């Protein structure tokens, strides 16, 4: 595989990751969200492996496998089981309507493009141009967490944000040191268990997973 071809494949994967991030923003159905999230993980994992292959960095294979195991199988499976057990309504609603959310998303993409401009100029790596996409994915995950009002969708937004971070790590720097990556993966796994417990807690105390019920803690005047 030549450098240019790898760069091309990588940018296609970056585009796909961005596309799935947008897909997550507009998907209404909860299982659809899970599938999109899993696909994002697949693209992320392939991209990590490609970067690892071209740069000859073998620790990236480990993180690719880690991504595949965690983001494509484990987390969607945990969420699936939770959704199934909690018998959550199949539809998700959003606070802002979809076209507006999309436009906000596009604005965020442009914003992150500008923000990463200085870094892009400095980078000599094959993957340099994907940093903007990574930051955009982070921002879109943030946007998803703001616009959605169900606990499960917020969590998926959070995980998508984490995907963006991971992608940033591979695209900007060929991956963080392995110690850090393992630690981050561990943290995410713990977080997954915690939100699992949370779903049950929220469910038993509020009788639903709608976060709009949770508006008690405000500054009262």
């Amino acid at each position: 595989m030549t450098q240019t071809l790898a760069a091309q494949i990588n940018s296609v994967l970056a585009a796909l990751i961005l596309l799935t991030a947008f897909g997550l923003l507009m998907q209404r159905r909860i299982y659809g969200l899970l599938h999109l999230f899993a696909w994002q993980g697949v693209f992320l994992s392939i991209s990590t492996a490609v970067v690892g292959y071209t740069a000859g960095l073998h620790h990236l294979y480990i993180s690719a496998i880690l991504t595949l195991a965690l983001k494509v199988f484990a987390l969607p499976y945990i969420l699936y089981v939770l959704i199934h057990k909690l018998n959550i309504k199949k539809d998700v609603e959003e606070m802002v309507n979809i076209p507006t959310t999309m436009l906000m998303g596009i604005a965020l993409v442009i914003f992150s493009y500008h923000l990463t401009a200085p870094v892009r100029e400095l980078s000599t790596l094959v993957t340099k141009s994907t940093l903007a996409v990574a930051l955009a994915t982070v921002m879109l995950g943030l946007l998803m967490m703001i616009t959605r009002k169900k606990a499960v969708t917020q969590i998926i937004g959070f995980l998508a944000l984490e995907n963006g971070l991971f992608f940033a790590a591979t695209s900007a720097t060929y991956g963080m040191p392995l110690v850090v990556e393992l630690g981050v993966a561990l943290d995410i796994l713990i977080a997954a268990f915690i939100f699992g417990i949370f779903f049950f807690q929220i469910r038993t105390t509020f009788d639903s997973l709608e976060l709009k019920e949770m508006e008690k803690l405000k500054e009262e005047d």
Partner: protein
Amino acid sequence: MIYSISIECLQIAFVLGAAPLFVGWVRMLKCWAHGRASAGLLQPYRDIYKLFYKDVTIARNASWIFRAAPYITFGACVLAGGIIPVISTDLPLSLSADVIALVAVFAIARFFTALAGMDAGTAFGGMGSSREMMVASLAEPAMLMSVFTISLVAGSTTLSQMVHVSLSSPLVLRPSLAFALLAFALVAIAETGRIPVDNPATHLELTMIHEAMVLEYSGRHLALIEWAGEMKLFLFASLGVALFFPWGMAGVYNPLMLPVAFVSLAAKLAAIGAAIVLVETRLAKMRIFHVPEFLGIAFILATLGMLSFFMLE
């Protein structure tokens, strides 16, 4: 010069002649897919022929617009057939009118059809016109965005130049083009009134869009409108081919390539027809309220294509 003018004429004649054939092919495949016996490839020709021999009935209160609209629409489509490189890039018209003009030509056609729909003063005509304009107002920005993405890659808005660039440059994986293609496909579905946006075969009051507008037409007027509609489908398909898969098209002063161009175009259009049938058989027509969302997605895709051109290429 003579050569290119003759090519231009050849292409317009080809578009006029082949458009019903393409529609016939799509209908035939669809019949097969549904397990019905088809009326054959040539049925659209027979329909047009039949309509030309029928009398024209015009509502008493219809104005000149109603009478002129079929000719304007038809003319616009013929003009578009001269702009889009279908078999060759060597088109004088294509050099004088770029892709923005092309979108405008289609807009003129639609504008007059919509006016004519309202002109007769029936309820369905007005409803169809308003729906058509809603779809159009959403489809056009997405269409322009998607085409601009390709213009960015090619560095020109002239269609023949764009085709020329993609013919002469080596094959590169470009995410921007993939996004643009997806967006273009979605827009083309909306523009040509296919499922899932509109159903060309229905005359059900509540669901039709395009058919509601032209409900009042008869005789040769209807023939022209039908023909123009078939040309529009054909042209959008060949525009897609020209923008995204131009390989095999004849270049400048290259008459020997023409037979190859015809064959490759036929093959590509046959494949596109099959794809249309596949999509239309699998999907149901969506509710009109979901159309803005559908076209919103097209717009997002096109914008993403443009952004990824800047970000990734």
